[in-house]
């Protein structure tokens, strides 16, 4: 996911788009190190250190990665998980930005 996400964030610069993560790693320090090492320049909520954190529980996440696409009004428009189809995802993002 990282290479696709890095290029996506770069491509969408200046457009009304943001990538946000919900991270289930064990500590904030761990998360910060991964973000630095992998050059992940987007924000993530730290989900209190596990796959059963409060955000992942509320969203009933069973597989990682799981992605949701949410439009400017806060409505869910797209979902994928495990083996995310990046071409389809890019198409969905483009159609939301243009629409």
């Amino acid at each position, binding site marked *: *996911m990282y*290479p696709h996400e890095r*290029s*996506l964030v770069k491509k969408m610069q200046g457009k*009304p*788009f*943001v*990538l*946000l*993560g*919900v*991270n*289930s*790693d064990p500590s*904030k*320090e*761990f*998360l*910060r190190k*991964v*973000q630095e090492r*992998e050059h992940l320049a987007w*924000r993530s*909520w*730290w*989900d*209190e250190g596990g*796959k*059963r954190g409060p*955000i992942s*529980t*509320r*969203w*009933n*996440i*069973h*597989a*990682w*990665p*799981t*992605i*949701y*696409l*949410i439009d*400017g*009004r*806060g*409505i*869910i*428009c*797209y*979902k*994928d*998980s*495990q*083996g995310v189809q990046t071409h*389809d995802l890019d*198409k969905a*993002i483009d159609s939301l*930005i243009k629409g």
Partner: protein
Amino acid sequence: MRLFATFALLAGLLAIAAEPPKAADDEVKALTDEYERLAKPIIHASQDAANETDRERILEHDLRPLIRRFASRFIELAGKHPGKPEALAALTWAVTEPEFACPEQDRAIDILARDFATDPGIAGLCKTIVYSPSPRAGSFLTAVWQKNSNADVRVQGGYFLGRYWHEQVKGDAAQQAANAHFDQEAEKLFADLAAKHGSVNLTALKPPLTVAEAVEKDLFEIRHLALGKAAPEITGQDADGKAFKLSDYRGKVVLLDFWGQW
């Protein structure tokens, strides 16, 4: 020279005779090791690829054919020990290792459904198969749900069948509309499981939940985290301890990624 060769051959035969019969799980391990030896340099090359296109090409042209070749060999190995734990281990490899759809994976799932749907130790594999790209995955889970002789394992088969159905409902509006009937089936099955088997422990989940606890979350997901619904608010802190929330980004398209490096 000929004498030496004969002697060497004899010594070799004696050595084989002296060894205990090769344990079948050693065969699984040996095959796994052989695969890992061959896959390692390919995986390294893909990690070092200059860009995503190159990475995909390496995986497509080098890794996937290797995985398919070994999946065939694992199926062949399973065929030598039908119904035995070694066969289960070998078939599990052929099912879980390909993260892409292929006929070898389909075949392995069919054999599992035929020979291991009644196995009392199959709940863990049921959970894994939920995310299989194989179109045969549902028939395996259905077989466990219908045939397993251990009531608790049977219920877990049913629970993961519901999750498998729900997992098919993803993508954009058109893709989800085409698969919407899966969610209707999942909702019915979940409600039925909660009513009749709510107290059964889903031991394949880590940590385990009861059917009632898990189903409540799954029904919330089907009803409220669906396409066209308002995303629930998210609040929390980033890696630096700064608080922020999802609604801060209203007006922008948000790609929300649940991830972890572990």
